[in-house]
């Protein structure tokens, strides 16, 4: 049963949401009871950039190299996850399974080699 196995995660999740909420609410209460200050002015609310006025919004285009690495991550992480079930049962299987797994890792390495060759792993 899934709720029986993972129900405890839900209980802990509840605590994980409550725990950081307490200091934030306390901070707000301090403001309500006028213990801490809250005086805004345009300079204070400006985007921080070491004293220089910020040029334009940060929500613009970004360099494509991050995208390449994200693609690589998707491929490799999924394939590593495929290897986990094999790793669990591997001890009980024979040498044929070992050979096949090595083949799979070989294909993985081949993909890595291809990405390397196409200079997709260069940070430029």
């Amino acid at each position: 049963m899934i709720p029986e196995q993972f129900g405890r995660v839900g209980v802990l999740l509840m605590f994980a949401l409550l725990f950081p909420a307490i200091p934030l609410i306390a901070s707000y209460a301090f403001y309500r009871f006028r213990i801490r200050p809250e005086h805004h002015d345009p300079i204070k609310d400006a985007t921080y950039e070491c004293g220089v006025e910020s040029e334009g919004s940060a929500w613009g285009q970004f360099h494509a190299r991050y995208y390449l690495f994200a693609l690589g991550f998707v491929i490799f992480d999924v394939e590593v996850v495929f290897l986990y079930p094999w790793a669990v049962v591997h001890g009980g299987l024979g040498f044929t399974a070992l050979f096949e797994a090595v083949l799979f890792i070989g294909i993985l390495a081949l993909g890595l080699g291809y990405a390397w060759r196409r200079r997709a792993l260069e940070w430029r």
Partner: protein
Amino acid sequence: MMRSAWLDPVREPTRRLSPQVLAPLAVLLVAFLALNVAIAVLIVSGRLDGHWYDFRDLGNAVQALREWLDDRTADQPGWLSDLLGDHWLSYIVTALIGAIGILSFVGVVLLVLIWVERRLIGRIQVRRGPNRVGPFGLLQPFADAIKLIQKETLIPRGADRFMFYLPPVLVFIPGLLVWAPVPWAPHMSYLDINVGVLYLIAISSLSTLAIFMAGWSSNNHYALLGAMRTVAMMISYEIPLSIALLSVVLFTGSMQLSEIVQWQADHNMWLGVLMPLALFTFFFSSTAELNRTPNDIAEAESEIVAGFHTEYSGMKFGLFYAVELGNAVAVAAFVGTFFLGGWSLFGLEEWVPPYLVFALKIAAGYFVLVWLRGTLPRFRLDQLMMFAWKYLIPISLLQVILVAFERSIFEHWDVPGVIPLALFTIVNAVFAVRIVRFWARFLGYRPERETLLAPTLTRSVGGLQAAQRMRTVR
């Protein structure tokens, strides 16, 4: 003697303790020793074994409570019993107890370790660290919290206000949930699921999302740059991290954390000794996931102010800071669980409560993390990405193949387990050293062609020697 006292500003002035202080301390020491002898007698006589008051494993007490509750609430149908099985009440009660236990452990550890980390880094950098608030500065974390909670909450004008508030709360979810599957003692584990390793990998990668939300919603160039760097680094180092854990799973044949520790206890063998390369890969990738030095490019203060939390101030910054520390402790716990034998210590866990052994291992791992932070400089982003993709991933894939072979041999070779394990330890150590050297040369590292740069600045300015000279002049 005088010289060292002058040159070493770290040393606190020593005070002689008065007899009024010493006498109660001596009484306490004697009482403590007597208590230990009494406990040893209790353990030897075997009166503790399996009872609920067997404090060597708090799981026993919880199990007794669970049985007591089950006797009283058996066979009560309802939607809760449909959902959680017949023993729903004991299930919920034990879950609440465990959650409060984990939460209080993490909270106390955070308060203590903020102080420990700052003091240790102070010592490493030859200064004193916080020592004004309370004895030895012990109350410094409370002072920090009070200061942070009183700060004005600043939100930049251009920011996405809703998204700006979420990340400090969201980042706590992985920070706390990763503690669930940790085995503290043989029967003391909050969530003993059979996919523990996968659960860990899945949960720990959630923090990437919160960090990117923080960086994006700030609408600040530095923050977005820091967030992008973090995401790039975290996803890159997640692959070597999962491959390192893959070799652990391969050899123990289980993804259940308690079984991994049990395997190490049964074979009297730490997996970190058996496969040092996997230990190194895991540890290094974890420091990248943590954004700690040597891999703290996400918040490189000399380059991009504070990275993704540039715009965060007050308590929201405090939450980020706390989670970062908590994650460091969690990494120490997982290094202890996977590679250093968890709660087992070659039979000592029969005498000392296993959770204390485990806490000791956490403390040791955390000390290494602080040590790294105090000594190593920061890597460049491109160096880090290269290191993950071109170095760690290929060599850890090779390591996985080697470990798979060893596992097959271990299974099919009819000799006592000690012989193959000793053999594999040697083979793996030799392999680790050879492959590290070979792959470095393959990538173009030629140590014999490097010319050593003399530390001219240190030498000409003088460092400690200059300080010594100053003293003789005085």
